[in-house]
């Protein structure tokens, strides 16, 4: 039953938009007719503190209401979290995908984390975000890379959802920048 559900874990720091990224991903999937859950792990909430956020996506109704312990996809939004304990690879199985925001190559990340079986993707999302939006907020760019790695949603759906959700909050230039960042991250994410 469970394997019909795709489970995603985001690692970020408070204020980097890991929760927003998780919500955007889930809401985009919902619009595409999937069943979804999106929930952050609430600890001591403050800017800069390591935090996790989870997404479940399924074609069936999702009954599970426990935490995600064996994610299919792990997205590390902040590369300084690669050294945290427990490691970001915790609970990731052989089929698992690890996606890291870094300027390093997948092979280097694989070695660094001693991550043997799964697939590794890297993307320099912070740089892309900085270039396209002027802000070091890599969350939207990371979603572009997640689409590349999984195909779980489409870029067009994500763009629609982004406009819907943040259209009022962001200026047109920032919105265009975010959309560019998504496409650029999609194009430049490397598999290894």
């Amino acid at each position, binding site marked *: 039953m469970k394997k019909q559900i795709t489970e995603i874990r985001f690692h970020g720091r408070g204020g980097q938009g890991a929760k927003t990224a998780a919500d955007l991903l889930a809401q985009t999937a919902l619009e595409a007719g999937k*069943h979804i859950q999106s929930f952050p792990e609430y600890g001591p909430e403050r800017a800069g503190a390591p935090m996790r956020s989870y997404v479940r996506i399924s074609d069936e109704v999702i009954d599970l*209401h426990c935490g995600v312990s064996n994610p299919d996809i792990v997205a590390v939004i902040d590369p300084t979290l690669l050294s945290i304990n427990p490691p970001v690879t915790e609970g990731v199985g052989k089929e698992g995908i690890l996606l890291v925001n870094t300027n390093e190559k997948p092979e280097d990340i694989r070695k660094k984390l001693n991550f043997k079986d799964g697939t590794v993707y890297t993307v320099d999302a912070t740089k892309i975000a900085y270039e396209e939006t002027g802000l070091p907020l890599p969350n939207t760019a990371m979603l572009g890379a997640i689409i590349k790695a999984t195909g779980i949603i489409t870029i067009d759906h994500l763009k629609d959802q982004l406009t819907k959700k943040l259209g009022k909050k962001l200026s047109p230039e920032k919105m265009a920048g975010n959309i560019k960042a998504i496409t650029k991250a999609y194009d430049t994410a490397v598999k290894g």
Partner: protein
Amino acid sequence: MSKILPLTGDHAASESMRQINPDVVAAYPITPATEIVMSFSQIVANGLADTEMVPVESEHSAMSACVGASASGVRTMTATSSQGLALMWEVLYIAAGMRLPIIMHCVNRALSAPINIHGDHSDGMGARDTGWIQIYCENAQEVYEMGIFAVRVAEHKDIMLPVMVNQDGFITSHAIEGVKMFEDADVKKFVGEYVPNMPLLDVKNPVTFGPIDLQDYYFEHKFQQAQAMRDSKKRIVELFAEFNKFSGKKYELVEQYKMEDAEIAILALSSTCGTTRVVVNELREKGIKAGMIKIRVFRPFPMDEVAAACKNLKALAVLDRADTCSGEGGAVFGDVCTAIYNLNEKKVPAINYVYGLGGRDIDEAQIKNIFNELVDIAKTGQVKTVLNYSGVRI
């Protein structure tokens, strides 16, 4: 066409409140119910509901304002959690004793000390004897639907009791799920106009509320209140049928999952039921006759329904997300045992698990362990320990 919106449990609650459009909401924000109060305030500020929003200085005042508003004859709602519910305590009894149909969203959270903001049932379970009807919800969809349903329950002329709609703190309240919405007009029609019976502000027919009631009459009034709670069970079932016509959704006091031929079962409340359902499916694939019993309406306690559901079991585990600290098990266990002991000829060996305090996650592995224990009990008929704990380092 009904829309599906991405909503947290809290926003599902406030959306239902928007559609109900109550006359008065008096509330004080507290984690994890804050977003209900916050988003409903925004709804009112944006003119999407014409509710009189009463921001108060404490939960004691919130419930007191609700009592006043409801007594005056208007539809009244509130939301709270944990310490907030605890601070409402004495007024909860007054709301129920005065038979005021107030609706509260209670986001279940642990009680201090030690201080903790996460989900468990300590608050709701503590309030189980306050005279409020209690409904426990598994997910955001249920929070939304039960929030609407509760209006009809509370205001039913034969019930006239306050209703508490419970959801799990953070697990449900802060998780976004797809929630299928009803049309505003349909909800408006379903809940109808509140027509109060003998309200305080009907100046042409003056009545006295809350007079002193001594040895000669207090007992009769309390009996009357307790009887209303007993009778409400039948009315709630009738209202479920009506809700079914309105929504197509089938709700029962007690939900049974794969119980037709089940030999072992877990009985639980709220979000844990979903995870249990997943484990039941896994066990069924292995040929283990497992089932799940979910108590939706905990007050009034569905004694007959629980007993009937457990009738053919060989072993039962009751999950309590609150410890009574009575020296014995949880509150749900006590009530379930009363049902089994009094109503069933065959005594099912039953064990209690206290779990998930302070938001401690209950995962499939923990539930599987409990089922494994039940497999053993079913085989041997022997219960090793009645009171057990899951997920705690002892």
